[in-house]
């Protein structure tokens, strides 16, 4: 299965309870009551954090209501960066790579850790509670399978940032997100090159992914704590 196939199948898959959470506050609460369905539970912790932040902001008279939206987006990005950083840490530790490839993977992993730190600080600066680090699991088979998975994750990450850009209210948060978005795009192109894929699989214009699509796609990598 190519990562494009996987991406497509993720998009085609029925949304499921987890994806519903990102849309509807009442179903989010309902889901939290049911929490415990496999890998979804850890992710629900993250969404719970987002939800409570939003509520906090709504009830604070001095804070603009849209801040809750930015906090949700920053925490969503933070969770994705946690997943990416954990992935590269595990890949580096696996001993599957040596030399120049190992160095390249380490470098990308360092970038993701910096993104985690920056987004954590941003969530705090916005008056929110940073999303907790999720527990993760990744299928690490052959080096080529790992690189394919890395390419999938990076292309998804780039699409995730692109999908949120227009929804961000604060210019500072937008500037930060843009500066991370292009780095994810660089990672995606580099990994696509490594696995023999086009650097621009969507053509001259990159395609965004919605929060729903992205959360469904990362769900298999998040485990119940």
């Amino acid at each position: 299965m190519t990562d494009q196939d996987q991406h497509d199948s993720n998009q085609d898959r029925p949304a499921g309870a987890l994806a519903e959470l990102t849309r509807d506050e009442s179903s989010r609460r309902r889901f939290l009551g049911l929490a415990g369905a496999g890998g979804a539970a850890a992710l629900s912790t993250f969404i719970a954090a987002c939800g409570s932040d939003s509520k906090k902001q709504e009830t604070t008279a001095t804070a603009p209501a849209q801040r809750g939206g930015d906090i949700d987006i920053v925490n969503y990005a933070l969770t994705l960066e946690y997943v990416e950083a954990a992935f590269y840490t595990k890949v580096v530790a696996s001993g599957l790579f040596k030399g120049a490839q190992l160095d390249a993977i380490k470098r990308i992993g360092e970038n993701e850790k910096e993104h985690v730190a920056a987004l954590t600080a941003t969530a705090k600066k916005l008056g929110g509670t940073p999303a907790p680090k999720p527990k993760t699991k990744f299928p690490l088979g052959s080096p080529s399978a790992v690189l394919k998975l890395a390419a999938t994750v990076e292309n998804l990450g780039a699409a995730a940032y692109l999908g949120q850009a227009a929804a961000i209210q604060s210019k500072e948060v937008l500037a930060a997100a843009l500066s991370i978005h292009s780095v994810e795009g660089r990672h995606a192109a580099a990994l696509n090159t490594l696995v023999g894929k086009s650097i621009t699989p969507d053509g001259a214009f990159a395609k965004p992914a919605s929060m729903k699509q992205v959360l469904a796609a990362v769900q298999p990598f998040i485990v119940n704590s």
Partner: protein
Amino acid sequence: MPTNEKLLTPELAGVEVHGVTRSSFLVRSALAAGAVYGAGAVSPFVRSAFAASGGTDAEIVNFALTLEYLEAAFYTEAAKLKLSGKVRDLAKLLRDDETQHVDALTATVKKLGGTPVAKPKFTFPIKDEKSFLKLAQVLEDTGVSAYNGAGPSITSKDVLAAAGSIVQIEARHAAAIRLMNGEPPAPVAFDAPLPAAKVKAAVKPFIMA
């Protein structure tokens, strides 16, 4: 050219943009900022330039259009050089992408009720594969920073989404060219922040020229 500053990317100082529009002026200044402090310096310069001028979306898109004209012209020029197979293929792909960006941005300016800038004339200091790849790297890095700097000044959500879908492609180009040069595709985790005042000071001598 500043006498007291060592140029970080002298390749950029060799690019000439011959045009009289505000956009070509801004692109010239952005390149100058990149020449002195590296591509990361372009982002804060562009942001402050649009923030100070209260640039409209049409102006920002015209700036992006000028930048894409520059890149498209650059890869068209590169196609005349003797390039090895892989480099030639990449140059062609990038030229086609940039040409599509030119078309899309031209349409966007019109949709916003503006007049698309005329294509400026450009001169690039490239003579072989090596000088092409070196300049391509700084141009793509600079393009990424320019878009990222302009992004927060865009008012329309649709225009911002379009700019985002283009800047990610520029970032992918930059990474691919960097790999050809044996350079890390993503050298930093974020664009280097630099005080706008410092960038403006660096750019001033170029603007006089």
